[in-house]
């Protein structure tokens, strides 16, 4: 392998990792802060893609505006779902199981609602103006939109770090992850915090869906295709750990990129193999901050 090809594959891996991370970050955020396992996270990703399509095609809006609108829309829907449905099962015995079932029912319902609203035809979004071509450097051709996405990914990581470590809401979120009851007794409105965090998490799903839309087909069932991959990312990194999701995505993206270049026959198995190996040695993921098993 010559060096320029290695760089090229590295960038391909980074690109895949960034999109994986953008989807998985919301999933891991709500698990880390709210202890909620949102199996329907992929559905919010799908809704984001459809919303972006709708905004662009009916308002002829700028693509970046439509991404923003998609994130807000998915977030609002997420907040509605949390406040109306999920909230009712908090604290129930075997809550985890019921969470999964409830969010599974979201998947089924959202799938059909999307079909009712937008039909089964494939929708498509163009890349935004200025990001249609490619950038040439070191004899490599890299699509500028890919570079933009990598950039956005880095931006999200930095902003999230700043918010989580430097601001009061960020500290509340981290505290909520540790001890929800204590937070309540300190006078923080815990239910509101939960709704907001759930909204932010689903908004990130919608954001990722909208960003990925110009690269993929917007079609029913799109949510299912990403949820399993993001689940693998989250599991590898350690559920609920933001940095773990980032690392998990990076590992998965790069392993895939170089494995495809060397053994393309087995491409469909790599993600699962990485996951299985990680779990055999660290069942709670690489970055698990807490002890998973108390007993």
């Amino acid at each position, binding site marked *: 392998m010559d060096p320029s*090809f290695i760089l*090229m*594959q590295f*960038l*391909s*891996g980074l*690109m*895949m990792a960034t*999109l994986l991370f953008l989807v998985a970050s919301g999933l891991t955020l709500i698990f880390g802060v709210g202890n909620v396992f949102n199996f329907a996270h992929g559905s919010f990703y799908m809704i984001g893609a459809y919303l972006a399509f709708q905004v662009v095609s009916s308002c002829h809006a700028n693509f970046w505006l439509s991404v923003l609108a998609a994130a807000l829309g998915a977030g609002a829907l997420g907040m509605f779902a949390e406040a109306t449905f999920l909230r009712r099962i908090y604290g129930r015995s075997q809550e985890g199981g019921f969470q999964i079932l409830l969010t599974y029912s979201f998947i089924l319902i959202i*799938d*059909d609602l999307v*079909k009712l609203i937008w*039909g*089964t*035809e*494939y*929708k*498509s979004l*163009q*890349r935004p103006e200025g990001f*249609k*071509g*490619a950038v040439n450097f070191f004899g490599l*051709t*890299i*699509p*500028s*939109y*890919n570079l933009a996405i990598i950039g956005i990914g880095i931006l999200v990581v930095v902003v999230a770090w700043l918010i989580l470590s430097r601001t009061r809401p960020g500290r509340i979120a981290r505290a909520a992850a540790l001890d929800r009851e204590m937070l309540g007794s300190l006078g923080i409105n815990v239910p509101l915090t939960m709704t907001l965090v759930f909204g932010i998490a689903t908004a990130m799903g919608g954001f990722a869906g909208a960003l*990925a839309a*110009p*690269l*993929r*087909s917007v*079609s*029913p*069932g*799109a949510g*299912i*295709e*990403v949820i399993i*991959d993001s689940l693998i990312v989250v599991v590898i990194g350690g559920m609920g750990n933001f940095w773990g999701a980032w690392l998990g995505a990076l590992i998965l993206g790069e392993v*895939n*990129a170089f494995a*495809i*270049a060397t053994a*393309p*026959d087995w*491409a*469909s198995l790599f993600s699962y193999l990485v996951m299985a190996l990680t779990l055999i040695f660290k069942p709670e993921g690489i970055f698990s901050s807490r002890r998973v098993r108390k007993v």
Partner: protein
Amino acid sequence: MLTRKSCLWVTLALLAFLVLSLPVGAEEKIIKIGSLYPMTGRPGIYGLDSVDAAEMAIDEINSKGGVNGYKIQLINTDSKAKPDYSVMVAKRYITQDKVNFLFGVVSSAVGLAVTEVSKQHKKIFIGTDHASTQLTTDKLQPYYFRVSNNTFQSMAAGAKYLKELQKTKPWVTIAYIGPDYAYGHDQWNELKYNLDRFGVKYKAVGEYWPKLFAPDYTAFISTIINEKPDILVAGFWGGDTVAFIKQAQPYGLFSKTLYFSPDGGGNYELMAAMGADLPEGLVLSGRHHNNWPDTELNREYVNKFFKRTGRYPTYAAEGAYTGVYAIAEAVKKVGNPDDTEALVKAFEGMKIKLPEDPEGFTSYIDPKSHQIVQEQAIGVTEPNDKFPPAKLMLGKWKVYKAEDLLPPADYIEQLKKK
């Protein structure tokens, strides 16, 4: 708490009542077709098109008085593209709904499962839109017929195209990318077999197997670019084609390498979804084209479908349309839809003029393989906005004779041995 619950029970009861009271069927002399099209997820668009086209054919036939006094009736159940569920529905069709024909199916896996039911219950199964060659070769059973091309036929046409291409644009290296399941693997094996059969010299430089519905092809694309094959054969369908082309285009893949997808790659939903983003010069085909052949029958079919649904059909639709007409034809010959053995005889060798037949050719069902024999046209993407929202359609057609595309006997033998 109790009152809210009782409210809910009432709502549930109402819902159940609504569902229960939906009409199920009528009496009188009817030919009942039980179809199993997926209406959800990625293949949902094909299911929707198929059902619409089948109903269009049925309305046409019934408005002319039906067949021998019989009216045709279609019942469709969303197969969810799941084989085990489809088996259940097929059995329901046969034993409860008493259908005369099993019909449809987009996925080959569902096709293989349903043909098993058809065999055991001796109920004719008309395949309209699944491509696995197995169904009309080694897995063929007496009650199965297919009215659309299989992958072998597409790949034979493809191999001929590539052979001719070598004369004008000498190419040597060829690579393949396709979904990692039977449909993807079959296409590549069949293409290589046909290239060898036609004596084409080539060098295969890579095969790439992303999983079906993979969202991201970036790493595959950069690897292929590094490999620089002259020809890239793609075995994708539907949304995967869209995603791959969208992601590969800015890399400049299509200017260095000829993109070639002769089975499912040229389906209309690709043109519709990509609009002006679709690159020019891709070599594609499908099992029916909205702008080829330029015959009265095809124009009429496409326009009627558009008037009925407000969209142009994918090739799945023409398969279903054909299937209904083939059934009508067979029943006309036999006189009733119940004499299965006589119907099988009627299908064998049946000649039927279809929208996808060019002037001077009539499709027919090969009596030995139960496979419809059709011409295949391969085209190149070029600007054409007559079928919006598509901005490009296929053109510069090359047409391949139907008889040349059938699998030879030794190939079928080889499949059976496996």
